[in-house]
């Protein structure tokens, strides 16, 4: 058993493995970059980097087979290789201190990227001038909101992620006096008015807007400027029997309602919302251009940040390269509407955002120390040679 363990250890600590892994990661990055032309950045991230294997479909089948190690596998092996080498091969000494620092920084960087992949949440906050919001909206995820609007003073919202609808099962929520059964779900779809499309089978929906509409399923889109628009057909049933069938989609921006046991519920499919214990009001959005041109010079949003108890109530200017960090979130100036009155802020929650900063410092110091050691050694050798030549 001993020699096997030894060769196993030898394999994981070897520089040869490091080189192989580095080459693999280089190829992975290269091909992933090329793939972005067709797939878009988001799809590439999941397919190439946030995966153990890059898979490809066998032609003519539904079968996906791994064709290349993915980012998680290569990154994980690199970490293992690095850790193992330091434990068994590289001694802790001043001469190697640069190497240790660099590698430690690298470990932090890789971990930071892993944590970002796991924990980072991104969403958008779209604000018109004067508008106040205490939530942001996901740019890719959609939810089904069932809103009890009976009490005029507040709304009681039950939000169901589309992932739950996709499984076509029945959902029973303690707050709702009815069950929701999904009969059909399309990840991306197009809605048309029924009168514009002749000769189509009758709508499965018999309530709300559904009967007037025709759903056409579309393939998933990966383009950066397009969004997938899911559609679901929902059968609602209360204690006394079926309530009817509704068609829901984020394309329908007006809510549809159902009344059960004296309560009115609105059904609305919308971008998933994240609520915060504070509100943001857009005071003014500015879009500066260079004189006499349309070249943008700066975008900025003057906002007011306020908590309900008014312990925080201040004005902040968010502009390019200068986000607002508050409550573990960061708000970035991400975009605007062509009317120049509406700002789009990107809201990012990333608990590990500091790691790259630390690792940058460590790696810089490490490499400087390492190469400085090389350089002094080289200069000493040269002066020795020169001295020898002079005496000779």
């Amino acid at each position, binding site marked *: 058993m001993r020699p096997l363990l030894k060769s196993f250890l030898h394999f994981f600590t070897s520089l040869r493995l490091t080189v192989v892994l580095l080459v693999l990661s280089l190829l992975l*990055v290269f091909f992933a970059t*090329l793939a*972005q032309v067709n797939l878009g950045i988001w799809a590439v991230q999941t397919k190439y980097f946030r995966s153990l294997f890059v898979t490809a479909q066998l032609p003519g089948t539904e079968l996906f087979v791994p064709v290349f190690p993915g980012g998680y596998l290569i990154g994980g092996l690199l970490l293992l290789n690095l850790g193992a080498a330091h434990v068994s091969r590289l001694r802790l000494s001043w001469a190697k201190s640069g190497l240790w620092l660099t590698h430690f920084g690298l470990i932090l960087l890789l971990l930071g990227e892993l944590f970002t992949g796991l924990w980072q949440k*991104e969403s958008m906050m779209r604000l018109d001038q004067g508008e106040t919001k205490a939530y942001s909206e996901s740019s890719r995820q959609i939810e089904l909101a069932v809103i009890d609007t009976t009490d005029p003073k507040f709304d009681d919202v039950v939000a169901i992620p589309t992932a739950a609808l996709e499984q076509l099962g029945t959902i029973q929520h303690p707050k709702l006096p009815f069950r929701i059964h999904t009969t059909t779900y399309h990840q991306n779809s197009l809605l048309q008015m029924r009168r514009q499309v002749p000769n189509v089978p009758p709508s499965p929906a018999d309530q709300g807007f559904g009967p007037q509409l025709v759903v056409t399923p579309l393939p998933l889109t990966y383009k950066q400027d397009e969004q997938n628009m899911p559609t679901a057909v929902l059968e609602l049933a209360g204690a006394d029997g079926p309530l009817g069938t509704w068609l829901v989609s984020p394309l329908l921006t007006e809510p549809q309602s159902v009344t059960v046991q004296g309560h009115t519920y609105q059904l609305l499919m919308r971008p998933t919302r994240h609520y915060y214990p504070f509100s943001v009001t857009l005071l003014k959005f500015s879009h500066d251009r260079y004189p006499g041109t349309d070249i943008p010079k700066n975008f900025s949003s003057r906002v007011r940040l306020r908590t309900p108890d008014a312990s925080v109530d201040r004005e902040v200017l968010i502009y390019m*390269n200068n*986000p607002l960090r508050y409550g573990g979130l960061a708000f970035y100036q991400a975009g605007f509407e062509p009317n120049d009155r509406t700002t789009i802020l990107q809201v*990012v929650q990333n608990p590990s955002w500091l790691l790259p900063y630390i*690792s940058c410092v460590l790696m810089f110091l490490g490499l400087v120390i390492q190469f400085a050691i090389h350089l002094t050694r080289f200069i000493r050798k040269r002066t020795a040679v020169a001295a020898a030549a002079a005496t000779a």
Partner: protein
Amino acid sequence: MKRLLPLLVLVLGLVYLGSTLVPPPTKSEFDLRGFAQLPVLVDGRIKPLDTVARNSLLMLQGRQRFVAPDGTTLAPVEWLLDVLFNPAVADDYPHILIENPDALAIFGKEQTEQKRFSYNELRSGLPELERQMKLADPVEEAVRSPFQREVAKLYQRVVLYDRLKASMNLEDSPDLLAEVLRLKEMLPAFTTALREKEAGRSYNQENFKMATAFRDRFQFMGDSGYLMVIPPGADNPDPNAWQKMGDALTGSFSRGAVNPDAMAYAGLGHAWRLKQPRDFNEVVRLLTTQLALSFGSELQKCRAEATFNQAEPFISSMTLYVLAFLLAVSSWLKWPDPLQRSAFWIMLLAFLVATAGILIRMWLEGRPPVTNLYSSALFVGWVAVALCLVLEKIYRNAIGVAAGGMIGFCTLIIAHHLSQSGDTMEMMRAVLDSNFWLSTHVLTIVIGYGSTFLAGFLAIIYIFRGTLTKSLTKDTADALTRMVYGIVCFATLFSLVGTVLGGIWADQSWGRFWGWDPKENGALIIVLWNAIILHCRWGGLVKQRGLMILAVVGNVVTSWSWFGVNMLGVGLHSYGFMQSAFYWLIAFVASQVLIIGLATLPLEKWRSFQTRAA
């Protein structure tokens, strides 16, 4: 003789440089220099008319040199003066470049020797060009066919020419100055008529009609013009409130006075058209004195920029790099010591000229050295040559000069081609408008590019000298190996730190440290490649020759990151998009593959190392 050679070469180099600073002898009686230095606001930047003339020529006809139909070569501003003030002459100037035969067919022409056409020659085909542009317009730029791309380019050229012509002149006016003087004389009567009409009182109908006719004409001039030539008046607090001449003249009605600068430019045009140098020079002098009062520092910058344009320091530097390279290579064959020293001095001179050029650009722009693809090319070369000077100082074997001369020349050629698309000092788009990040992330990344290239070029010297000549001795080979190794270490440091800094910038501006954007990936690939070289070396996986081959691959990797990713046209960084360079990139990669092939020849086939192999 041999001892004096370096000194002689240095003096010759200095004389050559001095000659570029002397303005070319001009036979013109007009104060063209004074006119060339006048500031205007175009594309968000105050620049001299000389720059406007040169960039317009580049955009219209792909080069700065312009030859009139009668065979005389015009200075760029002379050409501009005719376009601005004498359209009847300029419409016959062959300055609109059409290379694509399909685009020529729009104008019913066949491909011949002629590539540049005059506005009059194209006039009949302009409606068809406009129709083709309407067809091409909805197609996204990245997926346009070569014909559509050519149509768009040609359309832009024609529009640019039209807008230049309308900048300081009304095409149907026989004499704009006469019109402006008439306006000045009648302005009180005009404003009264306009005011009375507005107030609903009785007014002089004839004056009102004339006033609106004037106003409409000048408004049209303002709408179609391009150059903002009229500086804001002394009462205007906004220093950026420059105006087009048409707008300034339209403003006469609301202000109750004709803008004196607009009148001066109209007079300038009059004097140029009628060939009255005395009047022309007097107006230029007046305009300059007037501008010096409130725009003194801008005027000073414009003077410097016009001189800079004319001296073309990067062209001189390019010539000197070639000379340095040739001297260095010759030194391996004959007279090693004097030729090596001459080569060193010439490269130092070229380097200083390039440094001065970069510094002047920085001063003019008020920016760190790298702001766009063009300046990155300048700086990549600068970094590589700076490192070469250090190497040469240590090793004194002409290898540093040969590599530096080669890289300096190549990067300046690349820069020269990149400058063909217009102003190289364009304004920075919002997200890039950060001198802090431009001077940290961008500089370190570009230093990484430059040093990775240098390692690759040193390796090429090793391979060529080893395989094709007998001059690669063991000592030289060992020295080259140490150089390549040292430079790879340097490159690793800078490309790694630059890449991580880029991530931090992205975190500051977009909310994510790393987005796998093509440009970021390109930078990462360089870091990975340098790390691979170092680990191969440390692990003993490669020896001398392997190291050289890996370094040459570094050239391919770096060129891909520098230019290749821009050609993909995706991602947040895609502002550096470009198309035509694609074939050059392919050619460069092919050449590197050939060199690698050469290096993999068995050692017996190398001309050097024969004794050792035997």
